[in-house]
């Protein structure tokens, strides 16, 4: 049933590589009317967080005719993931595998990519190196800090005290960037806004996340946001205390019917549809997809009851600005020890933001 048209362009372009691939039953050089895409999650697919954000995108992909989706949850970042990938290839004939957890990449995704050159593997983090890593592997990731900026705008106008709280996992670049963007969003509408941050030290530690949320509320914060794997505990704890919340990773509206403002979400379905489309047409699956608001890679959760009319209007305008390339980081900006860290205007995708290791002035807390 499968069409076996070899794309001339690719054959000419890649020569022997394409020939080798065409000997594979589901090689990249074939157009296909049926493809199988596998996704592997490190936690449960309904965790109200990182894993759910991917599972939600896979559910969208499932609606695409000709695409069958296979999923595995709770796969540890050990050789178990290598075997899960192989199992999807051997038993399900997977053409593309999406490895969604950071620790899956090295060595597991790399090993499987080398071992199965006819299968495409894509990993969700900026780790793929075009010079050293297999060409059938690749990376995709989103600049979620843009959506956290929008969170900040909405939070700044929904807060009465101007004191915002942020429960953070670890002081690594992605988390710091989200926290800093949250502050800048809030300050764009309320120059006196502050963000108090507490690091829990772990991507998933529900007890400490609840403690941190309570501590921030006790310190006077009236909007709480977070960057932990699953924000469920943070959102529910704040809601129970009657405090407003901004979400992270997945849609958490239902967890806080009274206080939810909006949330920062990655829109993985954009990427997954690009992959599926390329596989169906027999075109090269892009090795690297990254982006933010300008290419629909991030989004904000629809406003909840906690968002004031001003907040909704300003956040919607902020999204429009980000789509048009309006920069978040506009210097001079100091870190919270007083050192100037950003001089001028920095593009939202500038490489210098990738090495961020500071908290901006206006954030109460420390990375150490």
């Amino acid at each position: 049933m499968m069409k076996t048209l070899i794309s001339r362009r690719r054959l000419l372009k890649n020569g022997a590589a394409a020939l080798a691939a065409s000997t594979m039953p589901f090689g990249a050089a074939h157009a296909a009317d049926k493809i199988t895409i596998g996704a592997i999650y490190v936690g449960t697919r309904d965790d109200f967080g990182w894993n759910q954000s991917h599972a939600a995108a896979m559910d969208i992909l499932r609606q695409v005719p000709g695409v069958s989706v296979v999923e595995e949850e709770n796969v540890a970042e050990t050789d178990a993931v290598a075997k899960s990938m192989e199992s999807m290839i051997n038993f399900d004939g997977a053409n593309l595998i999406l490895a969604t957890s950071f620790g899956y990449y090295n060595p597991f995704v790399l090993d499987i990519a080398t071992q199965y050159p006819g299968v495409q593997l894509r990993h969700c983090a900026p780790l793929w190196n075009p010079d050293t890593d297999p060409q059938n592997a690749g990376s995709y990731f989103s600049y979620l800090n843009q959506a956290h900026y929008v969170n900040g705008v909405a939070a700044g106008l929904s807060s009465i005290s101007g004191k915002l709280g942020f429960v953070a996992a670890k002081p690594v670049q992605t988390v710091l960037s989200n926290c800093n963007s949250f502050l800048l969003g809030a300050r764009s509408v309320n120059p006196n806004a502050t963000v108090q941050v507490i690091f829990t030290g772990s991507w998933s530690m529900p007890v400490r996340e609840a403690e941190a949320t309570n501590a921030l509320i006790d310190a006077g914060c009236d909007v709480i946001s977070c960057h932990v794997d699953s924000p469920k505990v943070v959102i529910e704890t704040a809601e129970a205390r009657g405090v407003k919340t901004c979400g992270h990773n997945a849609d958490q509206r239902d967890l806080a019917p009274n206080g939810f403002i909006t949330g920062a979400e990655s829109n993985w379905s954009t990427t997954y549809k690009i992959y599926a489309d390329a596989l169906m047409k027999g075109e090269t699956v892009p090795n690297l997809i990254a982006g933010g608001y300008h290419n629909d890679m991030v989004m904000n959760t629809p406003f909840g009851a906690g968002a004031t009319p001003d907040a909704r209007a300003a956040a919607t305008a902020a999204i429009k600005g980000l789509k048009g390339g309006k920069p978040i980081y506009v210097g001079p900006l100091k870190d919270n020890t007083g050192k100037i860290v950003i001089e001028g205007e920095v593009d939202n995708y500038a490489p210098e933001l990738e090495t961020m290791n500071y908290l901006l002035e206006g954030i109460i807390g420390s990375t150490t």
Partner: protein
Amino acid sequence: MSLPSASSVARPHRKPRLDPRSLALIEASVIPMGALLASALIFSLFLLMLGKDPIRFFSLVWTGGVASSFSIQNTLQRAAPLILTGLAFAVPARIGMTLLGAEGALVLGGLASALIAIPMMLGGWPVWLGLPIMALTAMAVGGAWVGLAGWLRHYRGVNETISSLLLTYIAVAIMNFLVEGVFRDPGSTNKASTMPLGPDWRVGDIPGTSVHWGLATGLIIAALLWVLMERTTFGFSARIAGGNLRAAQAQGLPVGRLAVASCAIAGACAGLAGFFEVAAVHGQANASLAAQYGFTGILVAFLARQNPLAVVPVAFLFGALAASGGLIQRRMEMPDATMLVLQGIIFVTLLTSESLYGRLPFLSVSQAGDRT
């Protein structure tokens, strides 16, 4: 096996039957097998209640765990760490100690081997010397860690179950502290890890398979520990102490040293598992070392009734369940927790079956000696 036992000689009037050792062996096989079968039936009811087909479930376990060369390798790979952590529970259990410290010893052993490799790697040491040093370091660190629980138990009266469990949490915290602090490789941005081992400094796979050498090592260690526990004075003394501590003390057996040594052996097994996780799987130490192998090993040892040799097939069984778990998620659209339910049912059924020993009429084992 062929030695005549004193008790059978002493009862010549009874009708000829299998010697007690064989009877005990049959009993020790029939009861766990029966328990497994009962678990399968109970689990089938659970599946039927969910509207799922139990036959499909077990055929998928077969497909995913046994039916093909890939499936077998998948099973063996997942069994490899479980053999060593299963032994880590089984050995001290023979002396009557319930130790939950394997996870901690695995984590610290793995970390220690990753750290000691760094100066050797940078100093250009030969790999054939370096890898054994890494393995021994892992065993020493793991052994010392769990040995501490044995020492606390005997010399300070601290409950070894609690102390070893708490030591596990401390071990994981120490590992995180060091990996995220002084020993962090600056290149590991979002997932703190130690400096990666070079490609030469890795333990490879058993030729022709995708299973690392940890499996073969586990098999050898299981055999050695079986000899130690069943065929040496050390094992004999340990079993006496496990059966009746005061009697052992009255006999003048060095109970304290036996306890500490058993715990140290246990820790060394788990530490060795940690070495293979670092040298064969991850190539560095990081939070992924705490993958619950130490805790699954407890189930394995229980099902094996603390017999070092029986740990091996039981580890294969758990390996097969883990290997087929993904297929079951994908084909039957069931959550991963399904396999945990099955494991839980097996565990409870098995503990219940313990009460059957010595009570099966067709296996009257009144003469079975000191078998537990």
